[in-house]
């Protein structure tokens, strides 16, 4: 089937306004008379609060509000899963980012001075940095009900001990990963405005789910959600880090208290210290296989550092376990995980959602196995790869399109892979200090929320005067290009010009609830909701056209953006004509489309398993300086299978951004926290890749349309962040023969490994 808009390169509908600076992000708003807010954060990683005295701060000229836990009217906590993260701490602080008091003042300087006038007396408590310390029997309790945040055991498949005992080859290794920062260009921030006339508080803030923010604010204010409007889009980068509450409740409290507009915009340091990070994890693998290369058994244990509060640590651990075997068949499997509370950085949601931490290890193990068997690593993966209809390693049937084999076949056909020896040899001749290597890795990445977690979307399509088309979605535009993809899909099914479509997004008053923009889900679920909406709209258009034309409905047809007579296609009404007819008869052309993401026939609890996956293979070429240990990623090829590419530019953009993010995680980025104290609180110590560091990149799109996806699409927002990590590690092995068991792979670590030999 040939499409007009789908599967094309369509310029982003928001590009012009963003490039010309016309787009207003939440933190670009400066309403008149706006106050500046600041948050007093804990001075210690773990302590009792003995005394909290804000009287001097309240007396400072220019200060309009100093609020504490006493001013939280409703539930003093937030959290996507378990709301145990305090809005403002009462008598205990559990990490350096904990909020104790809020200040609103006429300017930043006064607000800051007010913070310094707040007196807090602490009684220090023992600091727990790691899950191992946290889970030791004599560990002090961080939460009254214990230090275990979450545990997950996926029901075992077969008998893993027997499977390993019977395997001709057994590999065993433990891998460690670090905390990672989202590092959005726009740090958490926004503006709150309280309107005394209608009693509505409006919060503009970078978000991933304005409707959940609204409910979390309502719970803490003890207000009706209808009195709270959240405008959460556009967002200046989110990557999972803005799904949770940051400034929203604080802004609402201050705006209502002062009855003035209030602005709160976290500094970079505050964003690093207070906001959630990618969890640091330890993942242990035992993998059994035969001499023929057939995988038999996999045993995985994951321990995660959850930080001080819950947020969404449980589902992250669950997805780490689900992702850990990869898109391969195993007869026997066992997956166990535990997340512990600590006083270290906060573990939270981050693009990849637990997968990077485990795929880093497991795909190196497969590389080891291929070398042991003297098999091509792509051949080994192909031999064990799943297909649609197969039973996965975690024991569920794969009911949706599964194109991992196609990505592997495409990888094997690239020049970078086919001619790899020649390429490495040629490069070696050009640089005497370096050895070159090429590595490959694959992943399956879940799309959607999983079994038992609400996973729906509502969208509204309205055709107004002159045929102007409005699409309303609660979904957030956070840089990924989904508004354009929605417009493409709507234009395709409505057979209209894409330029006639205006997308209104991320506003709890102006839009319906489309669910969270997470879990690589928004193309799949919103696309289906759009298709559903148009299927409701078309008969209405025909009905109204029938009245106007005086032709029976069954003689009319919809096509090419108009309703026409089957008998004489010259007799037709455009969308503008039909809209005018509807308006003149006081009717609206407004429909709500709805979709729910289909679920697996298994239910392992807590959202497992998933029903849709992006499949991806990535290849990396690296140069390793054997004297300094420096690794340069020279070229990367990403080969995603996302069902259908809605916008080819969009898929490539997601792949490129993901690869840079994955490269940063692999080689440079590290949130260092020792005894609860952050050592990397700026971008001069938290090392992101620069333009000079990033590789040449190529995307090869593999399409395997999924019958239940819009135009066959699934999603692609997260997967390309993941296999790049072990692909780089495998390429380093290929270059210099060392295996890397922890991240980031610094030159110091490479040299240590090279010395070990």
């Amino acid at each position, binding site marked *: 089937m040939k499409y007009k808009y789908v599967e094309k390169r369509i310029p982003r509908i928001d590009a012009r306004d963003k490039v010309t600076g016309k787009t207003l992000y939440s933190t670009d708003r400066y309403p008149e008379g706006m106050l500046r807010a600041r948050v007093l954060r804990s001075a210690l990683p773990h302590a009792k609060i003995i005394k909290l005295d804000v009287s001097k701060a309240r007396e400072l000229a220019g200060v309009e509000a100093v609020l504490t836990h006493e001013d939280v009217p409703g539930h003093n906590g937030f959290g996507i899963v378990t709301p145990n993260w305090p809005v403002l701490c009462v008598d205990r602080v559990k990490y350096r980012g904990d909020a104790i008091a809020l200040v609103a003042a006429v300017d930043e*300087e006064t607000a800051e001075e007010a913070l310094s006038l707040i007196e807090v007396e602490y009684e220090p408590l023992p600091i727990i940095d790691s899950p191992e310390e946290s889970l030791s029997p004599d560990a002090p309790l961080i939460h009254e009900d214990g230090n275990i945040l979450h545990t997950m055991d996926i029901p075992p498949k077969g008998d893993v001990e027997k499977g390993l005992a019977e395997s001709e080859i057994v590999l065993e290794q433990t891998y460690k990963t670090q905390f990672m920062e989202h590092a959005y260009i726009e740090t958490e921030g926004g503006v709150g405005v309280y309107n005394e006339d209608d009693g509505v508080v409006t919060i503009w803030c970078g978000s991933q789910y304005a409707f959940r923010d609204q409910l979390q604010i309502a719970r803490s204010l003890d207000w009706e959600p209808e009195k709270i409007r959240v405008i959460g889009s556009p967002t200046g980068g989110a990557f999972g880090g803005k799904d949770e509450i940051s400034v929203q409740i604080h802004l609402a409290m201050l705006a209502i208290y002062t009855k003035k507009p209030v602005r709160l915009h976290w500094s970079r*340091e505050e964003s690093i210290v207070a906001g959630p990070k990618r969890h640091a994890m330890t993942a242990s693998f035992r993998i059994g296989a035969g001499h023929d290369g057939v995988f038999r058994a996999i045993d995985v244990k994951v321990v995660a550092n959850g930080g001080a509060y819950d947020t969404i640590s449980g589902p992250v651990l669950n997805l780490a376990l689900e992702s850990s075997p990869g898109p391969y068949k195993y007869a026997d499997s066992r997956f166990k995980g535990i997340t512990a509370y600590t006083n270290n950085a906060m573990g939270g949601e981050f693009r990849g959602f637990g997968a990077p931490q485990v795929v880093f290890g497991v795909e190196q193990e497969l590389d080891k196995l291929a070398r042991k068997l003297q098999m091509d690593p792509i051949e080994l993966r192909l031999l064990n790869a799943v297909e649609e209809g197969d039973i996965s390693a975690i024991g569920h049937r794969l009911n949706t399109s599964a194109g991992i084999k196609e990505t592997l076949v495409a990888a094997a056909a690239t020049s970078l892979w086919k001619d790899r020896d020649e390429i490495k040899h040629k490069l070696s001749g050009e640089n005497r*200090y370096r050895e070159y290597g090429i590595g490959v890795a694959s992943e399956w990445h879940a799309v959607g929320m999983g079994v038992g977690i609400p996973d729906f979307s509502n969208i509204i399509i309205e055709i107004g005067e002159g045929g102007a088309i409005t699409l309303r979605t609660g979904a957030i535009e956070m840089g990924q290009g989904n508004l354009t993809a929605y417009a493409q899909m709507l234009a395709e099914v409505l057979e209209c010009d894409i330029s006639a479509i205006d997308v209104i997004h991320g506003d709890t008053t102006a839009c319906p609830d489309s669910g969270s923009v997470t879990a690589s889900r928004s193309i799949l679920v919103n696309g289906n909701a759009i298709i559903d909406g148009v299927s409701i709209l078309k008969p209405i258009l025909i009905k109204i056209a029938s009245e106007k034309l005086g032709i029976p409905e069954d003689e009319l047809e919809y096509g090419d953006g108009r309703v026409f007579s089957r008998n004489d296609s010259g007799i037709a009404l455009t969308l503008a004509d039909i809209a005018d007819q509807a308006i003149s008869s006081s009717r609206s052309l407004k429909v709500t489309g709805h979709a729910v993401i289909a679920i697996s026939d298994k239910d392992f609890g807590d959202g497992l398993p998933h029903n849709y996956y992006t499949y991806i293979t990535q290849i990396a070429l690296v140069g390793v300086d054997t*004297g*300094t*240990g*420096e690794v340069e990623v020279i070229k990367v090829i990403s080969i995603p299978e996302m069902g259908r590419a809605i916008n080819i530019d969009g898929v490539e953009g997601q792949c490129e951004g993901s690869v840079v993010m994955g490269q940063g995680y692999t080689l*440079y980025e590290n949130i*260092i926290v020792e005894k609860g104290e952050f*050592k*990397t609180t*700026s971008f*001069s*110590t938290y*090392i*992101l*890749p*620069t*333009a*000079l*560091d990033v590789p040449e990149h190529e995307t090869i799109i593999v399409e395997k349309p999924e019958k239940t996806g819009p135009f066959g699409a699934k999603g692609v927002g997260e997967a390309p962040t993941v296999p790049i990590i072990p692909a780089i590690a495998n390429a380093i092995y290929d270059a210099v023969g060392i295996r890397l068991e922890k991240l980031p792979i*610094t*030159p*110091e670590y490479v*040299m240590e490994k090279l010395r070990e030999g």
Partner: protein
Amino acid sequence: MKFNYQRVNTVSEALEALSGNNETRKILAGGTDLLVMIQEHLISPGELLDISGIEELKEIGEDDGMIRLGALVTHGRIADSPLLREKALPLVESCGEVGSPQIRNLGTIGGNLVMASPSGDSIPALYVLGAEVILASNEGERSIPIEEFLIGVKKSAIRSDELLVAVIFPGMGADDRGFFRKLGQRKALAISKVSTAAIVSLRDGVIASARIALGAVATTVIRTPRTESFLVGQPLTPEVISEAARLCSEESRAITDIRSNAAYRDEMAGLLLSRGLAEIAEEN
């Protein structure tokens, strides 16, 4: 934050302003370090004296073999200067690796010196060039060898009434070969984990003199006297280079911090020296 701001357009105006005792005054040149420190609340100056408009401090000159760089010459101009490429290659190479194009376009050589960071990239190059720092005050000018000017981490010998006006050094001669190399955590916007600058004088294939300086491996940039004296009188053979690297690593006195560890830095100080010397040996 609040501070008084004063802009001066000549050295004499600057010196007049500096003569009044004011412990909380800071001098603003390129601002690439100072403004970051103010923003991060590491310092809170009561007064900023902006010297960035003083044209007489922006000159690159040569007089009778001596090079004179005004304090406000930027890293970018040094990196692009054909004269300095010929007469001060280690300095050109180091300034070309400072920060990013934006920082190189604003940051000044004088600023890099008075910040006195052991990882300041221009400093090892100025050590091996044998530079002197010219300090001016209302009492007149004085000149201090760079190794005496820098006395500790972020500490220099400048008095609060003084302005660093220039740095001078003899241009490299026909027999001199030099280089600067650094390792950072990434390719740009990278603070040096370790850096090595060297100038050797080669006559008839033998080293007549050697000057080596290491950055980011001690409280100030340091010289490596044992390595230097070992090299004098030796030809640049692989064996000599390897021994020089070993000695250089021994003389490095690095510490462990969040950027790197001591053992790695010490080893790399020698490695960077050996790579630089090996390339000089090949070119001759």
